[in-house]
């Protein structure tokens, strides 16, 4: 399921990252990789703040939907 559906505070494993190459590359350089962990910290109407590799990343809904967990 997409990351937007994850409940806050739960640690999830990234299964797949979709989207255009450029976007995926950027997400990967930020630490979103298949097999990596991601935790949702805060949810603001679908826009998320997540914990990836100990950094906080803010994602808009459309971006979060590309990350499958």
């Amino acid at each position, binding site marked *: 399921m997409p990351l937007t559906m994850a409940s806050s505070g739960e640690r999830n494993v990234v299964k797949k990252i979709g989207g255009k190459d450029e976007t995926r590359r950027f997400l990967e*350089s930020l630490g979103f990789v298949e097999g990596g962990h991601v935790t949702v910290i805060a949810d603001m109407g679908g826009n998320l703040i997540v914990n990836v590799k100990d950094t906080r990343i803010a994602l808009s809904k459309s971006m979060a939907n590309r990350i499958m967990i």
Partner: protein
Amino acid sequence: MSIKIALAGNPNCGKTTMFNDLTGSNQFVGNWPGVTVEKKEGRLKGHKDVIITDLPGIYSLSPYTLEEVVTRNYIIHEKPDVIIDLVDGSNIERNLYLTTQLTEMGIPVVIALNMMDIVEKNGDQIDTRKLSQALGCEIIETSAIKGRGSKEAAERAIQIAREKSKTPHQHTFAEPVEQALASIEELIADRVPAESIRWFAVKLFERDEKVLAELSLPAALKSQAEDIITQCESQLDDDSESIITNERYEYIAGLISRCVRKKKTGLTTSDKIDKIVTNRWLALPIFAVVMILVYYISVSTIGDIVTNFTNDTLFGEWIAVPLESWLTAIGTQAWLIGLITEGIVGGVGAVLGFVPQMLVLFLFLCLLEDCGYMARVAFIMDRIFRRFGLSGKSFIPMLIGSGCGVPGIMASRTIEQDRDRKMTIMTTTFIPCGAKMPIVALIAGALFGGAWWVAPSAYFIGVAAVIVSGIILKKTKRFAGEPAPFVMELPAYHIPTVGNVLRGTWERGWSFIKKAGTVILLASIFVWFTKSFGMVGGSFGMVEDMDHSILAAIGSLIAPIFAPLGFGNWQSSVATVLGLVAKEEVVSVFGVLYGVAGDALEMVEQGAFGGLGSIAGHFTALSAYSFLIFNLLCAPCFAAIGAIKREMNNAGWTWFAIGYQTVFAYTVALIVYQLGLFISGGGFTLWTFVALLLLAGYLYLFFRKGYQGKQSLPVRSVKAASKA
């Protein structure tokens, strides 16, 4: 021999702090990623021959944003002697991703393991000896914010540069990838420098288009390489780029498990604050309260007190009065006294009087930036901005632009997508900057008796202009398409450091003061001369009646242009045109031209609106408001136009931006004035018709179905499709 040291690392990991520490320079450090948008150079303190370059923060060397391109090009083409790679120890895993790329480039790397104070506070342990052995480069523990270790890192870097020792890359990828890379290396061995062959091999493997173009390999070689890559791809069942990314992270994960012991913690303090300030319901109210406080304090309370002091006491009693009596005492000619006291002290002083207020505003904005709240604001506003085609990242430039447009326009660099960035640059100056506030105050005071709603309405017009432009521009072919999805690293909150906040405040305030001393000084002298001299009765000389002056002649030439907007008199035209020099000029020109006894700006500040009667006589409430609208929205001052030109980096786009702003301002002011005139019983004229036509045009542009171009497929997927 001079040595070039480059500081590289992730965004917001402390490069600029270390740069300031090493060079004694005064760059402002903000607590949001992307503060350094272009490289900056400085000399190492105590070493004349060592040049340090502060590079913009990047996450990787695959160019995604402008900053990444700047950094990558610098490293490839300028070849620094040594790179100091700043690694944020508190999120080491992500930071080492860049490190594995930097060590491939064949330039010696020294790692400054930064933010060690936070690492220690968190109770984490990093085995630097093991880590250094594994990565093959030296590691110095630092805490740039506390000034710890920076010097050692630099010394070590110099030593390494002198020894000319190399940093061989130590990390290896999975067997099939290594084999593929080795074969690619063989292919290109005589085409690239030996020390960076690994980097080129990896980039070719990833099919990096920029590198491919740069190497311009013969077709045969290319297809050989392509065979190697596709073979490896099918073996590992993934595309080459993801293979490399995963291999890097896998390597790092292994490294971390051996060298880093993390004390497990739950939510950090930053997370707890974020839970509140980015809460779905509380986020906007909290933001509103913060902004109201900032503006209330800087404009109404502290700022006002300090501004009154500068105007009345400093410029009034301490400078203007003694200066005039001294000039009279030494027998200076009357016209020269006039030039100095009226022209220069009056003109420049009017602007300088506003500096304290600006400084207070800048201080608050710097505080918000330094503590880390600004990055959250971008996140909070994203949902709203997206509705009219801008990303939340456009909000930071606009917020900063409410102080001054120049740093605001510069801040647009963090926006990755080209069209989003261009649109932000074009619309940022619609938000009234500090220098436009005097115009608002003057109009509110002179024509509306200081009505409370005029100032907020100016902000409202600015915001509405941004929204309307956003929607209209998004529907044109140039800007069509969704704004890039929002992704931004949120820095941990920290208590702002005094030095940094003061530095940032001063840096921005200083440009205001500098402006007063240069362009405004010249403009004041120009205005004074042209208004004092002219042709009377066929001979050139000083004029009594300003209507005969040179300035009046020039103004009268321009005035007809503004007639449909309701302010077609020469004084307003001159004020508007001189507003291009600096928006503060509008008010000081008004004061001089309408013969207001005393300093117009000062009267506005003191609320002594009675003295402004001579201005009120030239306007109706409607034409004054139209004047206000035009001046708020039209092309910004030269300094901001310069910033637009730098950021657009293209003459065509610069003209398009300025042209759009001016046409937009003109038409909106025209619509408001002419329709206002009609409604208030001015009769239906040709201009009313024009206004209605323009309004219909805007409504069409606003509501029409936007340009629906084909979404261009990224090059890679086109290739993949044609293969299949």
